């Protein structure tokens, strides 16, 4: 067995490549997923999330590279020999079996007695609060209940790792939000490593310990939710996660870790320098709209003059669209609860857009 660097990793994907004919679905993926972690694979449709999950489950083979489960290579283990269970996107509950039999199925296959399996199924149904539906067939349950049965069924054999492929995507918004908390709660209670796949960035941000942002078969950035949101590494991540202002800037000078930049119209900005962006570079800068403040007077630093183009009501916030003088358009978000304190600017009024410290982030490529 090859020497492994990280024995505590639940799943260690090393330089894994997946090709279908000449189409490369995954290009050299390396990920280390810790034990007891709620790990999320986030990315747009077609980026290879399901493919990676199916490789971990054992339904697809790895073209190049290897996958380790607690330090052991699992390449040669078929799906039914891997202590990994899956919550399928369409649930795939066995339609001819009752809810209890569905949940007991995996436990029984592990060689436990029928009684033991039924006891465990009862326990799991209690965990997902479906005990009263134990004798029903899957077709007699609502979508949300089926989703919970699928979860109970996958948890019942106590897998080392649980894979969840967009399990909430078929539910309506309210239920989806409720299930986020429930899933997170269950993950904490059971201590099982969850690998969760979604294309919904809000879902990823609210639930995950760590997130891997993927696009076109590559991991773009891996980190904690906050880090990914506040310090996106590149254009793709900044744009995909949340809403942001992407500005084209020129880096004039770098002094003591601060980059002095200017953008179209001659507006000057100073922000933290990042590795990979040097003096004279022409790159993009990301600034989250909620970290900008509007004022009538110019602030001492990083304050850009513009005209209010429009104000848009978006429920909890008001979004102001500002055209910088001779420069690009910017979005500024003001929380509705701050309305009393802050002045709402009329359309056509002159306003200064001021950045909070650390709000601007230079992006590589």
């Amino acid at each position, binding site marked *: 067995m090859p020497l492994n660097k990280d024995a505590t990793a639940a799943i260690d994907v090393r330089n894994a490549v997946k090709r279908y004919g000449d189409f490369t679905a995954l290009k050299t993926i390396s990920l280390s997923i810790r034990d007891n972690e709620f790990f999320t694979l986030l990315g747009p449709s077609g980026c290879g999330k399901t493919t990676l999950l199916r490789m971990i489950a054992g339904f697809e083979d790895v073209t190049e590279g290897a996958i380790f489960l607690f330090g052991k290579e699992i390449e040669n283990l078929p799906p039914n020999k891997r202590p990994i269970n899956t919550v399928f996107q369409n649930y795939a509950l066995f339609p001819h079996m009752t809810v209890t039999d569905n949940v007991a199925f995996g436990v029984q*296959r592990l060689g436990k007695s029928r009684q033991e399996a039924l006891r465990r199924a009862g326990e799991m149904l209690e965990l997902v609060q479906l005990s009263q539906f134990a004798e029903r067939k899957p077709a007699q349950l609502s979508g949300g209940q089926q989703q919970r049965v699928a979860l109970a069924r996958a948890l019942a054999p106590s897998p080392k790792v649980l894979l969840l492929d967009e399990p909430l995507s078929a539910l309506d918004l309210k239920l989806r939000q409720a299930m986020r908390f429930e899933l997170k709660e269950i993950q904490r209670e059971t201590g099982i490593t969850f690998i969760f796949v979604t294309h919904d960035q809000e879902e990823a941000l609210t639930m995950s310990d760590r997130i891997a942002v993927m696009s076109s078969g590559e991991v773009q950035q891996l980190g904690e939710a906050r880090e990914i949101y506040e310090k996106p590494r590149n254009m793709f991540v900044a744009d995909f996660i949340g809403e942001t202002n992407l500005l084209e800037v020129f880096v004039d000078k770098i002094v003591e870790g601060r980059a002095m930049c200017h953008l179209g119209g001659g507006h000057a900005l100073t922000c933290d320098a990042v590795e990979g962006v040097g003096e004279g570079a022409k790159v993009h800068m990301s600034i989250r709209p909620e970290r900008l403040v509007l004022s009538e007077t110019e602030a001492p630093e990083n304050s850009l003059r513009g005209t209010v183009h429009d104000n848009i009501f978006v429920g909890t916030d008001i979004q102001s669209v500002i055209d910088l003088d001779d420069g690009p358009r910017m979005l500024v978000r003001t929380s509705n609860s701050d309305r009393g304190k802050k002045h709402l600017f009329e359309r056509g009024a002159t306003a200064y857009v001021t950045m909070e410290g650390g709000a601007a982030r230079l992006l590589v490529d």
Partner: protein
Amino acid sequence: MKRRNDIKHYTGFLPLTLLCLFILYTPLIVVMVYSFNESTSITTWGGFSLKWYVDVFTGPESAKFKQAAWNSFVIAIAAATTATIIATLAATAIIRGGRFKLRLPSLGLISLPLMVPEIVTAVALLIFYNFIGFSRGMMTILVAHIVFCIPFAYMPIAARMQGIEDTYEQAALDLYATRFEAFTKILLPLMLPGIISGYLLAFIISLDDFIITNFVKGAGVETLPTAIFGSVKQGIRPNIMAISTMLLAVSMLIVTLSYLISKTDKTK
């Protein structure tokens, strides 16, 4: 709106429909009605009676018909069972076996017999049996029936299996089932309505077959269709109408059953 302008109305459609129905069903109705005739004549009505049904079971030809019916049912059950097992395995291989090289040829080969004229199959089988020295009797009939029943059993089974997503089996494998368990515990129960439909269809096709049976049966071995044909050659007596009516009833019962079963969908 005037009826003439209704796009759902085609001139001449109704009379044509009635003509078709008349041609199709009048002979059957006549046979059914006259099977309850008191008279010995097959064309004049002499009052209601069940005497021809009694005649079938006790009359001079009863021994012959009982033996023929027995043969027919034994062959139909054996042929349908064997054909269904083969068709189920074939469907599993063709639909679930992934993309193997002989997939398309297998699919063609299994449904081709439906397109070969029955008389050609009959002659071919007869020549083949002679060629290999297979002496004719029950066994030759049975083997022939198994062969032509396979595609009929295959169709409903394959249709059913195509409707079952393979994520069920993947879920079973994911939950530590062996491939065999995934097949027996998940796929097979889900396919059951298709299998039963296929079985009943094969059964009816076998029970009903005349041409092939007539060619490959040995001397003295009769099935119901060949026995009826033999009897009719001697002149039509009303007891033939009683047998035909009973056979029709059995067929209708099985077809109805098959239809009802194919409608029950356990995946919904």
